[in-house]
């Protein structure tokens, strides 16, 4: 085998390992951030009758900001269509907050939380994905 091929193979191998580690790290951290943001919003909105609270608005904005950033990075590694529901659900969340619809707001938040759990099944390395 030529030296060129050996070097290329070594580089390919390193690239593959790096991509696997990067994907796992990116997916885990993005979903963890999503879950943390949701938990924070849930805690803030627990006893609220009126959703126009300043802290809650900030928390929802943070959730949207974090997800938008993470989503654009995840799109390099994951099928964009598979993760677009979260963005849509966060947009709904903001609308329900503006309309002060507590019931729908909580339902939307639950949906985002659900996605943060269920996405772990197809992102990153695990036996379910392999099989």
């Amino acid at each position: 085998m030529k030296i060129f091929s050996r070097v290329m193979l070594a580089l390919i191998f390193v690239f593959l390992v790096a991509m696997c580690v990067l994907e796992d790290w990116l997916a885990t951290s993005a979903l963890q951030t999503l879950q943390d943001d949701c938990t924070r919003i849930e805690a803030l909105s627990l006893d609220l009758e009126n959703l126009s609270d300043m802290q809650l608005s900030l928390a929802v904005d943070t959730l949207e900001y974090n997800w938008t950033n993470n989503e654009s990075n995840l799109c390099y590694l994951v099928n964009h269509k598979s993760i677009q529901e979260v963005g849509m659900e966060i947009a709904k969340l903001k609308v329900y907050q503006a309309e002060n619809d507590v019931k729908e707001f909580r339902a939307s938040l639950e949906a985002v939380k659900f996605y943060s759990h269920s996405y772990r099944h197809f992102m990153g390395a695990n036996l379910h994905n392999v099989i």
Partner: protein
Amino acid sequence: MLTIVLRAIIIYLVVLFLFRIMGKRQLGQMQPFELVLTLIIADLATIPMAEIGVPVLHGIIPLLTLVILHFILTLLSRFSTKFSMLISGKPVIVINPKGIDYQALKKLNITIDDVFEAMRGLGFFSLEQVEYAIMETNGKLSVLPKAEAAPVTNENLKLKVDPAVIPVSVVSEGKIMKDNLSEAEVSEDFIHAFLQKNVGKAKVKDVLVMTIDKNGLVYLQMKKGEKQIFENVRRAA
């Protein structure tokens, strides 16, 4: 649309690069695992090309993984004959001096017609001409003809012949093949001088092909004109 164009370019370059580092085997020379690899590569490459939602990396990562796997299999095949036989099979004698080995044909899942077809491709139209026929692991048939059907060679006729020489292409479609000049033992000046002497005003760009061998035989054909052969040309570099 621009996205698809760019994706197609990226995937094409990656696949081209992969085939370059995998070697230069022809399709017909492929071992089974190499054929499988080629088929999968062709399929994988098209998915991210057309589907914008799928990241390009979803096409590239499996391609790179397959190349690594291919090299591991090749390496293992080189070190272990048993492993090589396991993934590539082993050559099977389908015709021997007793005749066609029908059991071997059944094992290989080929018909007598397939054997005849492969034999005809090699220039043997009768079973009488064949001593042995072996089905190679790459699916090609190798034939050992009977002594009376084998082509006569110079050795058989006890003829003394000059060693074979390979003509080297020094000009191709108006361009001097600089990499071949040292092999042909000529210089660019030689080519210009040769053309001036033999073709008059013609320049290198007017040459379709010019080859030269170590016996000094020059084959020259201009883009407009017929071939010319020059013998015993002195190759003063």
